[in-house]
């Protein structure tokens, strides 16, 4: 059992009944999961209690679901990728992006070695991850691909919190080790610098296209001038050339806008890199909750000044949706603002002033413009090694 846990074995067993009935508040659930994920004692009471709840489930009347539900569900099944193997897939992308083979968690009994081939993207043998197996049947895994949903989800914050708790519990041992072993934040910086390179490349690409386009505008304007100078030029030809010029000017404006956005991002990422390398920064590694997503990122809250959340590889979402970041303080979400993913799914926000007690950062997909309270389950989640103190490690700009 690890020293960071709040529950001892007896206290965890004492909560077994309430746990299997889903009658614990989510912070209590998280504590139990934390304990089970890292304690190597058997805790048979959980499996026994879970078996009894199986009986309770069977005490409800059998009611056939509507046939259309089956059709809808099987279509969703066909479209929904599966978790390949264990929790390792949840952290795989993050591990790949951040740790780069440098981290090894060592929690005897609670940790299983990754099976060969399960994490091809990670250096063989370099990474171990925790198994949620100790939780057994009593731990519902509630993280689903949001895209598999039928319309807006009715699942709400409790679902998000529970899912976050489960992911965090699973990541617990890994995170503790990660924080200890890469306290110099080298991995995070490597990832951020990669993001800077990506953003700079975007700016360079946009610049090149802009230059080409400006040349075209100039050429077309010259054609127009020449055409107007000739007596036989028809009005239609003039109109056509004018339209071309207008279209290209619209595109020029669009590229200029893109460059401005990319420049802003580069600047923001530069600041985030600086913050990540500053001693005393509170950094959460954000892991995707969906194994088919390559999204990964981090939240950085320096000891003074405002914080940053940066994510790469965010999947495209519908025009009427947005990514939204959340501060979670003791299970209570507060919006940290909406995040717009640019090319390569890169999104960053700065100037963040997390509310006191924030211990977790999560991203959800929400209706465009954002919402007051999350309505979806998290697509990324990460736990801060230290909760944000009262009075704030940060100040509002």
């Amino acid at each position, binding site marked *: 059992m690890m020293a960071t846990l709040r529950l001892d074995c007896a206290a965890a067993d004492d909560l077994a009944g309430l746990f299997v009935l889903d*009658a614990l508040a989510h912070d209590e659930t998280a504590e139990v999961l934390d304990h089970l994920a890292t304690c190597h004692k058997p805790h048979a009471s959980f499996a026994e209690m*879970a078996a009894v709840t199986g009986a309770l489930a069977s005490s409800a009347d059998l*009611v056939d679901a509507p046939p259309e539900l089956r059709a809808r569900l099987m279509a969703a099944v066909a479209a929904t990728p599966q978790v390949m193997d264990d929790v390792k897939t949840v952290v795989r992308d993050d591990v790949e992006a951040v740790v780069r083979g440098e981290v090894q968690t060592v929690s005897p009994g609670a940790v299983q070695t990754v099976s060969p081939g399960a994490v091809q993207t990670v250096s063989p043998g370099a990474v171990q991850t925790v198994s949620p197996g100790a939780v057994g049947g009593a731990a519902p895994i509630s993280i689903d*691909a949001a895209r598999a949903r039928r319309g807006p989800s009715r699942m709400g914050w409790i679902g998000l919190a529970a899912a976050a708790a489960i992911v965090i519990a699973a990541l617990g041992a890994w995170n503790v080790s990660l924080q200890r072993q890469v306290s110099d934040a080298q991995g995070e910086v490597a990832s951020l610098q990669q993001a800077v390179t990506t953003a700079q490349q975007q700016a360079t690409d946009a610049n090149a296209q802009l230059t080409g386009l400006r040349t075209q505008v100039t050429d077309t304007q010259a054609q127009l001038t020449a055409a107007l100078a000739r007596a036989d030029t028809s009005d239609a030809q003039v109109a056509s050339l004018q339209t071309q010029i207008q279209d290209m000017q619209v595109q020029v404006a669009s590229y200029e806008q893109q460059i401005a956005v990319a420049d802003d991002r580069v600047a923001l990422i530069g600041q985030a890199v600086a913050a990540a390398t500053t001693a005393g920064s509170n950094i959460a590694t954000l892991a995707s909750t969906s194994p088919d997503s390559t999204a990964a990122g981090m939240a950085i809250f320096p000891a003074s000044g405002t914080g940053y959340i940066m994510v790469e590889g965010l999947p495209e979402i519908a025009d009427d949706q947005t990514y939204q970041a959340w501060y979670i303080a003791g299970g209570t979400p507060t919006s940290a603002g909406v995040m717009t993913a640019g090319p390569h799914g890169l999104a960053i926000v700065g100037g963040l002033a997390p509310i006191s007690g924030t211990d977790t950062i999560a991203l959800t997909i929400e209706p465009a413009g954002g919402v007051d309270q999350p309505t979806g389950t998290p697509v990324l989640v990460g736990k801060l090694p230290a909760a944000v103190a009262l009075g704030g490690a940060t100040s509002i700009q």
Partner: protein
Amino acid sequence: MSEPNDGALPLTPAGSAARSDEELLTAAASGDQECIAHLFDRHQGSMYGLALRITNDTMLAQDVVQEAFLGVWRNAARFEASKASGRTWIMSITHHRAIDAIRRRRPTMELPESEMPPPAALTIPDLWEEVAGRLDAGAIRTALERLSAVQRQAIELAYFAGLTQQEIAERTSAPLGTVKSRVRLGLLALREELGMGTHAEVRG
């Protein structure tokens, strides 16, 4: 911990319908959609019934079943037969989803009727492996009724109404420690009533 369930559907000896939940889950973990469909057909009545009982809302219950079953599909590789039977696992995911859904809906919701509806005829084999299919819903209800009133109330408020221990304590004007022990002792008594005691001890 459960016995193999191969013989549970003797009328369909061939194909995936004859296979146990655990075998179907293992196959589903490798992407077998036929097997997951069989699991759905086998458990949809229980899943939807439980979701309806908890949510008292047909649309919400369908959402719950969909979310839960997609969770089963996606996470089939995480199922460990040594820790729970397939049915217990599936139903615990369904329960968790349903509780999520009604907690989300609070505080405007009406708590579900504590009075149970009349039992429906069991038209498909009950594949609840822990007791080798000996028990139907009626038997389980009978066992529940044998609990002390306060134990039954605590368990039902938790399991069907989705109250947390804190909320149960407030609603029943009982100290938290009392709620905790009512739930624990009630579940142990239920296990005893259902003849699951020795089974669990062997499992250790």
